[in-house]
C-alpha cells in the first residue's frame, strides 16, 4: 500500500532523511520509531505531499506522491505533529470545513461528520469552540479530521504526544480499532506504543534506516541468537577466555560486571556454562537468559550503537 524507495530529503545542507526504503502492507499499522530529530516528521511530510523529496520515490496505493499529488492527497488522512486547528471555529464547523476541503460530496458530508464525531468520541464537545476544549479533545479533533473522508491511508505524527496516561490508552484503542479498514503509519519515540499498537516497525535514526519489518519477523531474528548473562564474584578475565573455548560459543562480552555469552542458534549451552563456572570457582552469583528484543535494539540505536 505504501512504498518508499531510496527517499532522501535535504534542507539546504542538512540531510534530514537519507536513502530510506520501506513498505507497508494494506490494512496494517506500522510504527515509525526513532528518537527526536530522527527524520520521522520529514518522512511523513514527504509522504503526504507537504514537502517534495530531494531524491527517491514514494507511492501510496500505486500513485506516485510526486507525480500525482492530488490523487494521493485524496486517499490520505494526515495528523501533523502540530494539530492543524482553527481555534475560532466550533468542532463541527471545523470538521465540515475539512470534509469540504477533502472533497467529500456535499450530500455525504453530514454522514461523514457524524461518523468522524462518533468514532473519535467527540459528541460531547461538537458544538464548542476548539479553543475552549482540552488538550485531549483537541488531539481527538485532529484524529477526526484525518478520518473525515474515510481515507485508505492514515498518517499520524505522534498521535499520543502530550496526553495523560488514560487518554493515551484511549487514543491507542481508537487507532487499533481502525486496523484493517485503513493502512496506518504512526510515528513515535516511545517503544511501548509500537509493541502495543503496531504490526510492524521502521526504526530510523539520523535519517537512516536502522531496521524494518513486522514485529514477528524482528523478534524471530533476535531469537536466533540466544544468550545468557552471568554475574560472577571473581575471575572475570579468566572467564572471558575460558568461556570462549566452549564449542558453539560465538561471543563473550562484558558490561557493568555482567558477562554476556551468545551462541549459535539451535543450541542450548546453559548447562556447559554453569558447569564451567562452578568448576573454575568463579563464584557464580547469578545466571539468567536474556533474549535480545526490540527494546535492546532500539536502545542501541538511540544510544548511538549502530548496527544491531
Amino acid at each position, binding site marked *: 500500500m505504501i512504498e518508499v524507495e531510496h527517499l532522501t530529503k535535504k*534542507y*539546504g545542507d542538512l540531510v534530514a532523511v537519507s536513502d530510506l526504503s520501506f513498505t507497508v502492507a494494506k490494512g496494517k499499522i506500522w510504527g515509525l520509531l526513532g528518537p527526536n530529530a530522527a527524520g520521522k516528521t520529514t518522512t511523513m*511530510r514527504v509522504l*503526504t*505531499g*507537504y*514537502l*517534495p523529496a530531494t531524491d527517491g520515490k514514494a507511492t501510496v496505493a500505486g500513485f506516485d506522491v510526486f507525480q500525482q499529488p*492530488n*490523487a494521493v*492527497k*485524496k486517499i*490520505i488522512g*494526515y495528523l*501533523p*505533529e*502540530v*494539530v*492543524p*486547528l*482553527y*481555534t*475560532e*471555529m466550533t468542532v463541527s*464547523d471545523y470538521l465540515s*470545513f*475539512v470534509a*469540504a*476541503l*477533502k*472533497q467529500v460530496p456535499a450530500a455525504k458530508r453530514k454522514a461523514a461528520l457524524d461518523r468522524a464525531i462518533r468514532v473519535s468520541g467527540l459528541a460531547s464537545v461538537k458544538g464548542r469552540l476548539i479553543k475552549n476544549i482540552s488538550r485531549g479533545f483537541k488531539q481527538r479533533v485532529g484524529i477526526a*479530521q484525518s478520518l473525515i473522508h474515510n481515507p485508505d491511508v492514515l498518517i499520524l505524527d505522534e498521535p499520543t504526544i502530550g496526553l495523560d496516561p488514560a487518554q493515551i490508552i484511549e487514543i491507542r484503542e481508537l487507532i487499533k480499532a481502525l486496523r484493517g479498514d485503513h493502512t496506518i503509519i504512526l510515528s513515535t519515540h516511545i517503544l511501548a506504543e509500537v509493541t502495543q499498537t503496531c504490526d510492524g516497525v521502521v526504526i530510523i535514526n539520523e535519517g537512516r534506516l536502522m531496521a524494518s519489518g513486522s514485529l514477528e519477523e524482528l523478534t524471530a531474528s533476535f531469537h536466533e541468537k540466544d544468550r545468557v548473562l552471568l554475574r560472577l564474584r571473581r575471575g572475570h578475565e579468566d572467564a572471558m577466555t575460558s568461556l570462549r573455548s566452549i564449542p558453539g560459543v560465538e561471543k563473550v562480552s562484558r558490561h557493568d560486571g555482567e558477562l554476556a555469552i551468545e551462541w549459535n542458534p539451535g543450541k542450548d549451552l546453559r548447562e556447559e556454562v554453569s558447569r564451567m563456572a562452578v568448576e573454575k570457582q568463579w563464584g557464580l552469583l547469578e545466571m539468567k537468559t536474556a533474549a535480545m528484543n526490540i527494546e535492546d535494539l532500539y536502545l542501541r540505536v538511540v544510544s548511538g550503537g549502530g548496527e544491531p
Partner: protein
Amino acid sequence: MRNIWNIAKKEIKTYFTSPIAYVAIAVFLVLVGFFFYSALSWFNSQTIQMAQNPYYAQQININQMVYTPLFHNMSIILLLMLPLLTMRLFSEEKKTGTDELLFTSPVNVGQIIVGKYLAALVVLGAMLGLTFLLSVFTFAYGNPEVPQILNGYLGLFLMGAAFIAAGVFFSSLTENQIVSAILTFGALLLFWILNWAAYSASGMWKDVLNYLSIFQHFDDMTRGILDTKDIVYYISFAFFGLFLTHSVIQSRRWR
C-alpha cells in the same frame, strides 16, 4: 471552482465570526461618516456664499465638492486598514501549522490563494457597500450624478482589490502578522507616492513612474473618468500580487 468557494467560505466565516470584520467595518463607517459630514457642511456653507454671485453659482457641483474629496479620504482609510485585514491570511496559517492541513488536501495552491483573496474582497465590498447609505442625504436634498459616483466606487473597489493582493503576497512571506502588515503598508505607500518622483523625472521615466503610481489612476476615477488603462492597471497589479504569492508558496516548499 468548488475548492475556491470552500476556502473563501471558511475565510469569510472567520472574518465574520471573529470581531475582525465588524470592527473594520464599524471603524471605516465612523471615519467615512465623519469625512462625509465635514465635506457636506463645508459644501453647505460654500454654496450659500457662491449662490450670491451668478458666476460662481454655475460652479456649484456636489460631485466635485463632496464626492471627490470623500473618495480620496476613503482611499487613505483603505490604505491604512486593508493591510490589517489581509495580514493574517497566510501568516496565521503558517504560524499555527494549519497550512499543513491545506497543503496536504487535494486543493491546488492557486485555489487556496484565490479563495482567501475573494474572502477579503467580500469584506471590502461590505465596507464600501454600506457607505452607499450616506448618499441617501445627498439624493434627498440635491441631485448628484449617479455614474460619477459609481465610477468613484469602482475606483475604490479596484484599488482596494490591488491593496488586498499586495497584502496576500506579503502575508505569504512571513509567519509574523505584524511584519506582514508593515511590509504591505510600506509597499503600498511607496506605490502611492511614486508619482512624486515623476515631477522631477523626465521623458520615459516620467511616464513609467506616473503609470506605476496607484494614486494617479485613482485620481482620474474620482473625477468621473472611466479609462480602461486604469482598470487594466489595477487588475494587473492584483494579478501580479497573487502570482507572486503563488511563486513564494511553491518555492518555500521546494527549499
